[in-house]
């Protein structure tokens, strides 16, 4: 299992939206890199599969099992997750991303996962 540091906690009112947005961007990045190798629909099912596996621990992510991440609007999600603590949100999204990479490893071994992991980590770290 690869590890990346999760985003630092922040309790400002725009925090939820920013966190969701940055993780969505990370997923979009994965999508960009995976599509040439495994086709368009793969990242969508990777995220759905990852959401299914983490939804026991983070039930608020269960909606991603049915809804493609491409249809997620951060502003709407923020309202639905108002009862989730900032820590839970960050940990949940982090776990989701980790599971996506775990899934990618099951598909292609270490062919495309490790370099992409580094790229995603750098992008997340650059997020203010």
């Amino acid at each position, binding site marked *: 299992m690869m590890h990346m540091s999760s985003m630092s906690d922040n309790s400002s009112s725009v925090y939820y939206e920013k966190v969701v947005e940055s993780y969505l961007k990370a997923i979009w990045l994965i999508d960009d890199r995976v*599509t*040439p*190798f*495994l*086709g*368009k*629909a*793969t990242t969508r*099912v*990777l995220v*759905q*599969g990852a959401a*299914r596996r983490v939804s026991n621990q983070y039930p608020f992510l269960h909606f991603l099992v049915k809804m493609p991440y491409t249809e997620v609007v951060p502003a709407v999600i923020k309202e639905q997750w108002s009862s989730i603590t900032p820590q839970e949100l960050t940990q949940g999204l982090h776990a989701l991303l980790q599971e996506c990479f*775990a*899934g*990618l490893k*099951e*598909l*292609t*071994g270490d*062919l*495309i996962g490790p370099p992409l992991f580094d790229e995603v980590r750098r992008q997340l770290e650059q997020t203010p």
Partner: protein
Amino acid sequence: MEGSVQSQSNATESAYRSFIGQNGDGDHLTALRHQMDQLNTIGKRFVAAIDRFQLHRALLATLQELYSFSACSILLKGNPFELSIIPRYPLTGPFIQAMIQSIARAGSVIGFPDVTPEELAVVADLDAPDDLAPSFINTPSTATEIGDFLNIPLTVESRIIGMLSLFDEHEGTFDTELLQLTTMIADYAAVALENVRLHEREIALWQDAEQERQRLELIISSMAEGLLITNAQGAISSLNSSAQHLFAQAEVDLKRETPTSLRKLATSTNVNWLSDLADIVDQALAGNIVMHRELIAGFAGDSVPLTLSISAAPLHDASKNIMRPIGVVAVLNDTTSSKQIEKLKDEFVSVVSHELRTPLTAIKGYTQHLIRRIERRLREARQRQQNTGSLAEHPESYDLRSLNIVQSETEHLERLVSDLLDLSRVQWGELDLQYTSFYLTDVLAERVRLAQVSAEQHTIFLDIQAQDSRIVADQLRVGQVVGNILDNAIKFSPPGRQVTVKLQEQDNEYFISIIDQGIGINPEYLDRIFERFYRVRNTASRQYAGIGMGLFVAKAIVEAHGGSIGFSSNPGTGSKFYFTLPRVPHTSVLQL
């Protein structure tokens, strides 16, 4: 069907460049042509595959050309999942087991959460090609672990339908360029697999439809009833063997032309019942359902001619919203044997009735004789009493009353016997009427008198509202009609109630009605009340005896006179039966 091959052409281009090499423009064109040829070959292989085995061969051949590997597999989504393992050479059990576990894990990643290694092991189909590489057979693989693998989703129109997996016993076999190439091949395979699935489904549906067609054909050909189907023009398009047999029995040749127009056939063969059959078909084509229409298809000389009962219904096209039927389905039942039984039964009833009539005539005659004797003796006795001033009732007056009842009941019995005799006459159209001129009031009065004798607890009124009552008709038959209806009126009226027999005249006919205050008739029985042997079966009528003949015969007699019969009824309050008789019979009736 469109895979994601075209949409990813840019992505795969780089893989080809590195796969084939890029040296100058001329070389580039040569390389491009080579690529096109390769793509063309791959495409043709997959397009040509019409079943899974051919597809597996195409996949194996294509992948083998590109690189070396131990086995590939195809997992297809479904219930249950389908897994085909295609080895390039004989593999060990543990290696295959490791493959299945890798496939199950990757399956759960791409949205097949329910798939387990155990389930896959059960459904796995090892499709080992016959032409396994001979060199490998000589030195079989002993690998038990997977060195390298690729699990690539099979996608059709952004829908994941399965997964293509490649396994090798050596590490580092696959790289990103091979991954891209394999993804491109997987796209071809996905489209081809979907086509194969559609083809298989089409074949399965066709087989189901064919099986159903054969089953229906068997049912139709085994039917004892004749089945005839026409097209929208009323021409016979098909008929089963029973129907053919019936037509042959009626000596109708149907082999002249196909489809056979019933109307034309009726004209050309001069067979009357075919014209009636064509009428029935026309009615059904007009959207009506025809039930149990009887046609005499035999010959007049036969004692019981071939009789068909025909039901027909319009056929509508299930797939199109067209109001006009596309044809007619008609069921032909041969009812000749039941007609024969009916004929035998009628003959039996006729013989028995004749036999009953002889003693009845004697009983009636001797009863009348006794009544006249007692009446004479009573007159003499009453004269003597007047002379002596005695008021005591003579004992013989009780005997007279009893004899009157005997006579009335004998009349009733005689009517029943007459009805039974008439049954066969009506049935076979042999009801003869003896026309004479008489006064209806006389017949009605006589019937009321006779009915009153045996119905002491009822009051029977005769209400004459006609200036004249002279009529030319069969006097006995008219009396029989009144008697039958009056019997019912009394039978179904509780004691103490009254029955009215009313005569009215209107235009050129008489209107006779018999109104009672009885139990009435439920509306559900209204349509069947004039059928022979029909008796209303409900709680109220269960206690009343009868054979259900009276109204059937009455209707036949009235209609034979050119009149009509009907009734109205309110359950619980009574019924009114009425019939009309022309003052003089219509010419057409006399000719009959």
